[in-house]
């Protein structure tokens, strides 16, 4: 039996104790009660306002620096705008031009190839390093820091480093390959090797993926692998049947964020191949979509067209991410038995 107190007629709602209010809301016999009292609504509104007040700096920043530019770029994508003169509405002209522009197809293809190389290599190497770290014992902390440190290197510096390390004549990579009798390619100038070179260079900053996967690996219940060992499962079987399914949410997360990062790749390639600008040599093999977008916006001042390019990229990423989520339903295991 529920003990209840009656609210005296005419009592001020604000004076009603919160505990009493909760009891009233629960009602006699656990029945659902009518709408909450005015006091509760006020308290709730106050709480909401307080919460909004606390997060208002972020909300204001988001509105000014993210939401407004996103919305404005959608408007600009339907205009002819050079950054100075007033924007002139041109309907779907920018999107029609985009279809006919061969450089859009070329840069999109470059980006797709890069992403297709980047995502599996990034996750694969990170997984191997994370598994090694898990077995590193006391020195794991040291190596974890060591792997993460390159992540702190500015992307522009990585771009310059790429040119030095991967120089086809006397770069460190080819020197190393040469020491074991392999003639390294011209990574920075041969179109066939530019993208693989950039992908290899991107492994420089793999630290955060290693940390994420290490955390996931450490959450795999040890009793599962111990049971499997007792049952005679070898390391490969344990890895493929237990470890990978158990860390599949982390792998899926990395697949999604790295795919988006792959589509948006810019700084390293721009620094390495397009930073000199003007009439210097620029490898078409490194002309990624966002670099082409940047060129249209800030070299040619075609801000309207660049905005249309940005929105198409957004849609492409949306579609690819949606496909990944659909596929993940069959491949990703979440604790609680859902697959």
């Amino acid at each position, binding site marked *: 039996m529920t003990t209840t107190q009656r609210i005296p007629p005419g009592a001020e709602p604000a004076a009603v104790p919160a505990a009493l209010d909760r009891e009233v809301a629960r009602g006699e016999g656990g029945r659902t009660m009518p709408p909450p009292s005015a006091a509760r609504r006020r308290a709730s509104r106050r709480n909401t306002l307080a919460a909004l007040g606390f997060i208002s700096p972020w909300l204001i920043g988001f509105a000014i620096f993210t939401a407004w530019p996103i919305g404005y770029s959608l408007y600009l994508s339907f205009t002819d705008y*050079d*950054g*100075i*003169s007033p924007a002139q509405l041109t309907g779907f002209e920018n999107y029609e031009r985009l279809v006919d522009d061969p450089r859009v197809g070329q840069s999109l293809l470059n980006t797709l190839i890069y992403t297709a190389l980047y995502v599996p290599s990034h996750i694969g190497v990170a997984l191997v390093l994370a598994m090694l770290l898990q077995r590193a014992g006391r020195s794991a902390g040291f190596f974890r820091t060591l792997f993460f440190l390159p992540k702190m290197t500015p992307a522009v510096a990585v771009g310059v480093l790429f*040119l030095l390390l991967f*120089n*086809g*004549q*006397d*770069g460190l990579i080819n020197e190393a390959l040469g020491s074991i009798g392999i*003639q390294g390619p*011209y990574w*920075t*100038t*041969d*179109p066939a090797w530019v993208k693989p070179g950039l992908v290899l260079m991107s492994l420089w900053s793999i630290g955060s993926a290693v940390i994420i996967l290490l955390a996931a690996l450490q959450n795999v219940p040890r009793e599962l692998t111990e049971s499997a060992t007792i049952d005679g499962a070898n390391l490969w079987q344990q890895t493929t049947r237990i470890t990978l399914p158990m860390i599949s949410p982390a792998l899926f997360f990395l697949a999604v964020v790295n795919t988006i990062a792959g589509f948006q790749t810019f700084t390293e390639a721009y620094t390495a191949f397009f930073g000199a600008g*003007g*009439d*210097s*040599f*620029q*490898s*078409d*093999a490194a002309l990624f979509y966002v670099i082409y977008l940047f*060129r249209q916006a*800030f*070299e*040619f*001042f075609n801000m309207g067209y660049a905005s249309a390019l940005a929105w198409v990229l957004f849609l492409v990423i949306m579609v690819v991410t949606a496909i990944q989520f659909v596929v993940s339903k069959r491949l990703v295991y979440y604790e609680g038995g859902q697959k």
Partner: protein
Amino acid sequence: MTARRLLPMTALAAATALTLGACANGGAQNGPGDGQAWYGGESNLTGELEIVGFGLGDEIAEVRHERALEALGPEVDVTLVEGGLDIQQFLSAVAAGDAPDLIYASRAQIGSLAARGAIVPLTDCVDGESVDTEQYREEALAQVTFDDEIYGIPEFNQVQLTMANSELLDAAGVSIDDVNGSDPEAMSAAAEALVQRSGDDLQVIGVDSKLPEFFPLWAKARGVDLLSEDGRTANLDDPAAVEALEWAVGIYESQGGFSAVKAFRDSADFFGEGNQFAAGELGAMPMEQWYLNVLNDVSPDAPLAFDAVRTPEGEPIAFAGGQAWAVPAGTDNGTAACRYATTMTQVDTWVEAAEARKEARESEGGVFTGVLTGNTRADEEIRGLLSDADEPWQAGIDAMYEANEAAVSMPANPADAEFTRIWTDAINGVLAGDAEPADALATAQEEAQAALDEAWAEADAE
């Protein structure tokens, strides 16, 4: 606060802001904010002057900057934002009405900036400051003149020379005349004679034809202007231009391909004493004249030979480049900007700076190789300051002045960035082996003409 109270307070705040804004505008004594500044030698200069894109890296810059400050007088507060001009940042500032008062830009960018209204005509400026535009180099003036108005004050001039390692030339049995472009077949043969390899690695680059950047030079040597004099018609697919490209690309192919040469070039210590000429790793290449100073400074004993770049008829030729001063739209102090720019480029200022450079070089035991400006009278006077130098430097100086007298340029146009990008992309495709020269230039011709037509249509409509 209720809406009833909020409204009048907002109106009051707006009125106050408008009033203060009007006061601020009324207080500006050095030209209105719409870019229509007034000029004149008698103007009493005050206010602030923000200069972007110029650096005080050497005595040439420092001496001229000091003279310009003196010309402005003590009432002008000058802020110099050193470093290269960031076009993105600059255009954003113009769009936001917060542009600097003076910029130091590449002359190749002046046409695009003028067509977009980002900079203002300086015709009144040069008239007001009594500047005789006849003193400017014709090719430099062409680069800063758009729609019959001067939009920039020419600064330094850059031209190309042929530079070579004389010991490598002698060892291969060729001479500077074989690598200066005057005999294209001889230059191709010299590249093969000079190149040295060890396995697949290059040990010596025979001849670097410096593609893609010097393609306009090789095309012009065969009589082709990639862009017509009025800046409206592309000539990228001219048969002579195709021939020039095939020849220049062929020079790389005979040395193992562009990738090999570029990788070796990139690995060099370009500005140090181990540069490729000093290290005996480069036979010959065309290069801008400023590299003469670098070589004299860091490797004065290197075995070098110099000449102008020459046409098949043996005539010197060069493609002029360089910088210019320009005044952004919306400047608050156009008068001071004009005074600063014209003082920096006056004959006396250039000569004083050159004297300081000469003194500095001689005190270091180096050779003063001269300074090329966009001002013919300044060039003449500075050349008069030169002493006879030992070889090979005297040959380099002579070649530099010979090239300067023969220099040509591309005219200002509203699509200069796109035009350059299109022909550069075409050549990059050829160098990467993705296209044949004729096909690449034919495609580039279509794209370039479309870009020019569109840009000119917009410029003409305004």
